[in-house]
């Protein structure tokens, strides 16, 4: 277990360094996408390992997926709304 946690931490630090490095490269619109993908990966690492989600029963995982999907749908619908105004 402690090995998993230490490895997770190493990945998190590496991804932080990566996102800082990538930000200094001019990628235009892509830079936002890359930053969010890296942040999403880091968040998943924390959720799965530090927060034990991978060891939890299916019902908890389903609850989590349901909550996150709801938020993602709200975000997407709002973006569509503001983009087409």
């Amino acid at each position: 277990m402690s090995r998993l946690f230490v490895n997770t931490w190493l990945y998190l630090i590496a991804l932080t360094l990566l996102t800082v490095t990538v930000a200094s490269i001019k990628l235009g619109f892509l830079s936002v996408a890359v930053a969010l993908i890296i942040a999403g990966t880091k968040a998943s690492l924390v959720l799965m390992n530090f927060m034990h989600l991978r060891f939890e029963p299916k019902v908890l995982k389903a609850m989590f997926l349901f909550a996150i999907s709801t938020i993602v749908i709200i975000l997407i619908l709002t973006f569509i709304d503001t983009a087409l105004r």
Partner: protein
Amino acid sequence: MASHLNGKFHHPRHCITLSEIVKQDSLTSKMGMWLFLFSEILLFAGLFLLYSVYRSYYPDYFHTGAKELNLYFGFFNTVILLTSSLTMALSVDSFEKNLKSTRMLLLATIVLGVVFLINKYFEWSAKISHGIYPLSDILSNAPSGLRIFFGLYYAMTGLHGLHVAAGVILLLVALIMLKKINHVWIHNAGLYWHLVDIIWIFLFPLFYLIT
């Protein structure tokens, strides 16, 4: 006694054993905590939504505003929070094995949380001394894009900072009552701490890395 209660031999299939009840109870406690965390995620999602829409309206001002922020503060605070999440996870993991290391790791987490807040204090003080704060003379006369950027910066990092402070208090309570609390209690306290870490994971690139 425990082996008798846990045993499969004396119970008909429809009977629930004590260990199953305890398991169910700890699952429902965790569920309650996760439901609370969902409401927290929704709270911050609303702010991220505001941020995204206004950033698409004023991309240039958001870039100008982000240039004022100190990348080093943001980076070190990220490392501090990630490390505190590691010590928290290790602390929860050692709870039923070695209470002494749980205590030490919990203390380390609290110290890292406090260091984060001290950094935040210096970061905000530097901004405020430069006259960059809501309703300051400089910001009042600045273009609305810049006003919105710094308004969101103070609102979002401020609300996050409040969560860190609440987390520190929660972990202090856990530390004081360590001998009285059970595994689910400290697990749930850890969940809260990790959520605060996740929110910062998104705040960091959105405010400090868009120059």
